[in-house]
């Protein structure tokens, strides 16, 4: 860029920018000698350089091409320049500051102390340094400097031609930035309160700037602004801890939560125990609100291992309290009850199946096999020989408390045909002071569901339609028990004004039509040894009675000795007509059977005389109308028709008293009678002279009571040792024609 004068080849201006250019044209430097000549040093120079060496450069032709100092003004500048060059050549390091601290070199040309812009100066010493090392160029100084010096001394003179033709280097550097207008932009949130104002301002500005497009007063001008240095900032925070949870919810869990919230609030107290509950991994549903079902807690303890640990650690204290609370809870008793029945049913299953006329499962258990075999073989034997009715003992209701007591009465629950009430009286028939009532369930033949001790020997029991149990006792007391709950609620007739004086021989609940309305209400009827038949009404917690009938002594028997006191004769039994509930039969001690009506309290409708001894039982036939049986202590059983005053038939002639009697509910011609020594089953269809089946009693133990089962062909027999035996009646021949016709045919044939 700055050409070198041709005539001064050996002296070159030391220029930064043209050094490269110069080097090409100059002869190559052959050698480079560094001599250590001491140079003058200006006192105000910086002390950085302590060079005392003089460097002499020779080219190929041994010409001295040592760069000369730029100027030799007062020897100082020369020294400075030489020093400067030496510094450059030797040190190889450029210090802009030292050179610029008064040196003419490296400074803006304006600050050259020579006052002349002819002096070359390097713009940057760094680049010069490099150039010097690479190549050398002659410095044209010695001749020039005096010229320059000469010129300076004169001050301002006219510029010579030489000077004009000289190439002058102008150095341009950057000044610091001046800030003319600093209008920093403001940033504001859109949600800020005065954002609206700002937005409007912006809007207005945009519109006005658009309007000014054609306006001459305003010119759009672009300016480059400084971009601020970007600084990265980092903020460290604690990491957010995350945990994964998973819950599997079952439909019933959701149902519990939605519907069962109120119910389970009461049981929240049990919840803390549930949290350690071992959990199967399958049902890991969350416990919604304390639902305490076994499968709804959210712990994850493995079952077996935790159990073993707990066992090993011996958590005895909590288990004791648990035991107490569990054992005393009602649910536990209920569970025990059900469990007992299940356990017993396992062994009693074939017998109960036979009772209920269900097929006995083969292979259920070995017991069933045996029983089945027995029954099969028995039946087969029977079938092979003849189809004769058989009695099989299925099981025996017996328990500890009732052992040794005599069964006096039995009754089925009308609502639940599985429940049987049995009345016991203690000891032999003479000494009877205490009584017992047991409510048995068919499902538990080993232990009664309820045990109700009574003050006096129980003579009669009967269930009402509402499952109230009426108990008649020997002391004339009648107690009505409500058996719905576990506690014993009973109403006694002791407080009533009108009670029986003697033993209550029989009780019966019967539906009666109320006089004014057509409603039917059930009331209790009793017949007692004092000769009164009473109807009892239950009010709130007491019962009241009205006298229904007075059993007067018949005059024909006791005519001679009219005992004023013994006007009445004791009634032993009674039975209501199966369809017309207002008509009933009653048997007396005299052996008379009276037919009475509830509406007529003064007179008997009819009297049947045949028996000589007290009538122990009368029973209407439920299937054939107007037929009834009566049994008495004289050992005979007589069959009567309602309208005829004479007995149609008489059965049995043994002298043993008949204790109890009953018609079969399913077969019109079958009835059973219990004498003390045996159970007799009569079938009028097959044999009117002898009982079809005779079951002798266990020797020493007399039978005392009989009850048919309403739904199956079973007979219950109670004996004097407190046992109630269930017999299955089978193979009773059933004719094709209707039973009523059969019976009537029999009657006609007998007559």
């Amino acid at each position, binding site marked *: 860029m700055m050409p070198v004068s041709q005539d001064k080849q050996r002296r070159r201006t030391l220029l930064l920018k043209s050094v490269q250019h110069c080097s090409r044209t100059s002869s190559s430097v052959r050698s480079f000698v560094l001599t250590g000549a001491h140079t003058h040093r200006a006192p105000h120079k910086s002390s950085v350089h302590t060079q005392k060496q003089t460097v002499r450069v020779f080219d190929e032709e041994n010409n001295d091409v040592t760069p000369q100092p730029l100027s030799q003004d007062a020897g100082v500048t020369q020294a400075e320049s030489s020093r400067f060059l030496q510094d450059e050549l030797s040190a190889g390091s450029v210090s802009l500051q030292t050179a610029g601290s008064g040196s003419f070199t490296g400074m803006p040309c304006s600050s050259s102390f020579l006052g002349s812009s002819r002096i070359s100066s390097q713009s940057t010493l760094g680049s010069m340094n490099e150039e010097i090392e690479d190549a050398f160029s002659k410095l044209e100084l010695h001749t020039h400097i005096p010229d320059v010096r000469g010129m300076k001394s004169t001050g301002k003179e006219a510029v010579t031609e030489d000077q004009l033709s000289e190439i002058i280097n102008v150095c341009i550097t950057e000044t610091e930035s001046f800030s003319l207008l600093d209008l920093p932009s403001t940033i504001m949130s859109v949600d800020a309160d005065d954002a609206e104002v700002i937005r409007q301002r912006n809007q207005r500005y945009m519109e006005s700037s658009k309007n000014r497009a054609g306006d001459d007063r305003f010119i759009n001008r672009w300016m480059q602004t400084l971009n601020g240095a970007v600084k990265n900032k980092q903020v460290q925070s604690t990491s957010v801890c995350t945990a994964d949870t998973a819950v599997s919810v*079952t*439909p*019933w869990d*959701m*149902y*519990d939560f939605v*519907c069962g919230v109120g119910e389970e609030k009461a*049981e929240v107290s*049990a919840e803390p*125990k*549930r949290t*350690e*509950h*071992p959990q*199967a991994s*399958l*049902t890991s549903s969350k416990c919604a609100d304390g639902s*305490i*079902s*076994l*499968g709804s807690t959210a712990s994850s303890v493995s*079952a*077996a291992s*935790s*159990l*073993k640990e*707990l*066992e090993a650690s011996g*958590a005895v204290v909590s*288990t*004791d309290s*648990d*035991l*107490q609370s*569990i*054992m*005393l*809870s*009602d*649910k*536990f*008793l209920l*569970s*025990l*009850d*059900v*469990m*007992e029945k*299940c*356990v*017993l049913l*396992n*062994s009693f299953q074939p017998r109960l199946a036979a009772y209920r006329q269900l097929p006995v499962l083969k292979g*259920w*258990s*070995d*017991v069933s096999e045996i029983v089945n075999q027995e029954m099969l073989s028995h039946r087969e034997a029977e079938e092979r020989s003849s189809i004769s009715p058989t009695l099989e003992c299925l099981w025996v209701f017996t328990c500890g408390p009732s052992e040794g007591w005599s069964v006096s009465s039995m009754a089925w629950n009308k609502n639940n045909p599985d429940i049987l009430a049995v009345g016991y009286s203690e000891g032999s028939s003479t000494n009877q002071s205490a009584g017992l009532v047991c409510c048995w369930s068919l499902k538990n033949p*080993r*232990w009664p569901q309820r045990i109700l001790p009574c003050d006096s020997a129980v003579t009669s029991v009967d269930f009402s339609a509402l499952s109230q149990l009426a108990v008649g006792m020997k002391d004339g007391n009648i107690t009505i028990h409500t058996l719905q709950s*576990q506690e014993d609620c009973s109403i006694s007739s002791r407080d009533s004004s009108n009670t029986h004086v003697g033993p209550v021989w029989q009780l019966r609940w019967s539906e009666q039509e109320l006089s004014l309305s057509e409603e039917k209400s059930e009331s209790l009827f009793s017949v007692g040894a004092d000769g009164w038949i009473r109807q009892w009404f239950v009010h709130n917690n007491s019962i009241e009675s009205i006298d229904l009938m007075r059993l007067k002594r018949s005059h024909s028997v006791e005519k001679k000795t009219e005992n004023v006191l013994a006007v009445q004769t004791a009634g032993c039994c009674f039975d209501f007509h199966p369809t017309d509930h207002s008509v009933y039969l009653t048997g007396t001690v005299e052996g008379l059977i009276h037919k009475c009506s509830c509406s007529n309290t003064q007179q008997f409708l009819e009297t049947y005389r045949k028996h000589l001894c007290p009538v122990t039982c009368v029973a209407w036939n439920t299937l054939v109308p107007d037929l009834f049986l009566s049994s008495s202590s004289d050992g005979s059983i007589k069959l009567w028709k309602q309208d005829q005053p004479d007995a149609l038939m008489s059965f049995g002639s043994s002298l043993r008293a008949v204790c109890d009697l009953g018609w079969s509910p399913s077969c019109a011609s079958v009835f059973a009678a219990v004498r003390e020594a045996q159970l007799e089953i009569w079938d009028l269809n097959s044999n009117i002279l002898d009982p079809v089946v005779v079951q002798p009693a266990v020797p020493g133990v007399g039978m005392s009571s009989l009850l048919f089962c309403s739904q199956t062909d079973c007979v219950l027999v109670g004996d004097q040792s407190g046992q109630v035996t269930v017999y299955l009646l089978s193979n009773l021949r059933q004719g094709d024609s209707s039973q009523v016709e059969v019976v009537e045919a029999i009657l006609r044939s007998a007559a």
Partner: protein
Amino acid sequence: MAQLADVEETLKRIEAHKGVIGTVVVNAEGIPIRTSLDNSSAVQYAGLLQDLTMRARSSVRDMDPQNDLTFLRIRSKKHEIMVSPENNFLLIVIQNPCE
């Protein structure tokens, strides 16, 4: 509240019945609190049957949330295990009906 004597008596009656091998009463946490078997068997029965009862109950209630499990009987070759599940306890009876 039921009488403790009645409860004890009933439990003894069950244990004395023909074929009953043992009974276990398990509390809510799966710990047998009263048993007639040896301890290790009782613990094993309690743990295993509790799981099974939970699963059975869950199955029953999944079908119909208004339904609930009342009794569980498992008949095997050798015994029959009967479980009466309740909210806060489990009554287990093992019986061999073939005796």
